[in-house]
């Protein structure tokens, strides 16, 4: 079809082809369903993976694919995460910390009169953002976006990050040399310091060690390609450690989306809105986020995982997706031990009545399910939870009134696997005054002053009794189907 000359011509055109780079250097944050749309007509693997993407990572932000995108994505998210953390002092701290790394730069032969231009740009931006944050004027995100869409400023800051990464690698050769196919010094000058080099995975590690972890952030690189699987791959994920060497709980995490040859920025839904706009004390958001979670079936919210990760054996990823099956599994095991006949029907087949049951109930059982899988004696830790207040007021045969049902999402979720049904106490109710004080309110149940709360220093889990639970559940089912 083509003669050699034509082929040579085509090859030449192909070699010289450079995709036109358009768009802003860093784009506005947008819904990640745009990625799903982008791959609508693509390979099935991509379609499957991008269809799931928005449920886990709600937003993304584009970076212009001009060969600097990786560096740009890291530098941008570094500043953006500082804004998200909303600790005004952190901006000053970071300036001091970065400046303290200049010794390292000098030691590795970088000249101050050259790199100070870049450092000043980074410090400038830190100060502007810090000022905006302390004035609470809400301009910080716009300042950041404008700065990174200025070619000069963004190149200066990226170059500053590059030389810090390079100096870091050269100062810690043993961490990097084994992964290189050339001398470290040459690698740094070609793949890190060079004005036009794409950020590779080794550079990500260097940036994570030198800049990202010390500020207390984690970084995650998510890889979207045609490899097998139904989700994008979590190829690189580091979390910071505190001075005592222990990992932080739920550190703010920078997330990059990598598609071969290109980096963009990803966010989880809970990364926004930034805390500064909704300053809330530690406890209240717990209720709000959790109620939202159960109702909307959203992926794990940060507030919930804060609490859940403190519970031994709990890990947030298990919660969002698996609960329906787990809850059924769970029900079958206790029933086998149970002597109650009604229980059999309830558990052996997930009848419509069960699935109709309110979402909080299902959620509660799921909590137990994932929990029990880590414990030898699951039946001791269960929940079928009814606010304590119902016990004295409403004896089991009577379905609890609707108002109490409504109150449940909070108490159920907060209490977690440690809160069991109080009906177990029925036979000898008066003999166990410790856990079932009749004056309990649902608010008290949720507070750490309650000995059944896992934060209470005298924590004493309530125990589960299948008999009372299923008696109670029948009541609940009735009320739920009303």
């Amino acid at each position, binding site marked *: 079809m083509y003669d050699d000359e034509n082929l040579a011509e085509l090859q030449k055109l192909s070699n010289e082809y450079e995709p036109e780079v358009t768009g802003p250097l860093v784009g506005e944050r947008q819904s990640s369903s745009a990625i799903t749309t982008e791959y609508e007509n693509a390979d099935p693997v991509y379609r499957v993976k991008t269809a799931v993407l928005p449920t886990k990572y709600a937003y993304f932000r584009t970076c212009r694919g001009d060969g600097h995108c990786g560096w740009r994505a890291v530098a941008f998210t570094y500043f953006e995460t500082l804004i998200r953390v909303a600790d005004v002092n952190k901006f000053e701290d970071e300036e001091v910390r970065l400046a303290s790394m200049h010794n390292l730069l000098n030691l590795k032969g970088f000249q101050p*009169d*050259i*790199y100070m231009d870049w450092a000043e*740009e980074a410090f400038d931006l830190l100060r502007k953002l810090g000022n905006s944050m302390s004035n609470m004027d809400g301009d910080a995100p716009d300042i950041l976006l404008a700065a990174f869409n*200025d070619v*000069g400023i963004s*190149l200066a800051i990226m*170059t500053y990050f590059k030389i810090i990464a390079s100096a870091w690698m050269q100062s810690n050769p043993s961490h990097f040399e084994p992964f290189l196919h050339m001398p470290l010094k040459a690698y740094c000058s*070609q793949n890190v310091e*060079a004005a036009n080099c794409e950020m590779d995975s080794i550079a990500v590690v260097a940036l994570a060690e030198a800049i990202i972890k010390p500020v207390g952030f984690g970084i995650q690189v998510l890889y979207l390609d045609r490899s097998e699987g139904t989700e994008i791959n979590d190829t690189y994920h580091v979390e910071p450690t505190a001075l005592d060497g222990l990992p932080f709980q739920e550190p703010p995490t920078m997330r990059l989306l990598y598609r071969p040859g290109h980096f963009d920025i990803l966010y989880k839904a809970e990364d926004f809105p930034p805390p500064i706009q909704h300053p809330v004390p530690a406890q209240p958001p717990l209720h709000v986020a959790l109620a939202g979670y159960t109702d909307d079936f959203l992926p794990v919210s940060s507030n919930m995982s804060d609490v859940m990760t403190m519970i031994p054996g709990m890990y947030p990823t298990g919660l969002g997706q698996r609960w329906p099956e787990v809850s059924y599994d769970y029900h079958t095991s206790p029933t086998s031990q149970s002597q109650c006949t009604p229980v059999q029907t309830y558990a052996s087949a997930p009848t419509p009545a069960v699935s109709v049951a309110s979402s909080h109930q299902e959620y509660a059982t799921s909590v137990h399910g994932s929990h029990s899988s880590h414990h030898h004696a699951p039946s001791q830790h269960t929940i079928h939870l009814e606010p304590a207040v119902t016990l004295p007021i409403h004896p089991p045969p009577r379905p609890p009134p609707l108002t109490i049902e409504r109150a449940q999402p909070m108490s159920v979720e907060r209490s977690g696997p440690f809160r069991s049904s109080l009906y177990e106490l029925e036979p000898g109710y008066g003999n166990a005054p410790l856990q079932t004080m009749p004056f309990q309110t649902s608010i008290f149940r949720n507070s750490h002053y309650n000995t059944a709360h896992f934060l209470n220093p005298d924590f004493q889990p309530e125990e589960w009794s299948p008999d009372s639970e299923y008696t109670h559940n029948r009541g609940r089912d009735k009320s739920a189907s009303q």
Partner: protein
Amino acid sequence: MALSTGRSNGGGATVAQRLQKELMDMMTHPTEGITAFPDDENMTKWTATIEGPDDTPYAKLTFKLSMEFASTYPYTAPTVMFKTPIYHPNVDFSGRICLDILKDKWSAIYNINAVLLSLQSLLGEPNNASPLNGEAADLWEKDFPEFQRKVTARHKAPEELDAGDI
């Protein structure tokens, strides 16, 4: 993509500011065997000289170069050409230079001084694996006296250059 804004109004340092700083630095800390000075006020074009290193065929010879800085400097390499005719494996007959740091390995951490020092060392250590002047690369390997003769024959002192085509 010009780096337009000046630091005064909050943008990046301009090319002129950076070059001004480099000029100051080179004047206060001169490097032996190297000079560089801007051609005019806007600083984007410079003329530089390097002396051939001792113990090389270029010893005692002085070479004039032109340097041109784009508005994206230092994030893109300057365009550097030999103005003095030179017989060298990595320089062609119109003075174009093949040196990695002036191409894909350019880094913003290099400055004029670093470029000129690299070019000076290139004189004594040509990269014969990717020559622009194949004959020169060949002679360097096989017939060094002939190489030396051609270097001397091709060279013109800066004064001769000025008297000639400029």
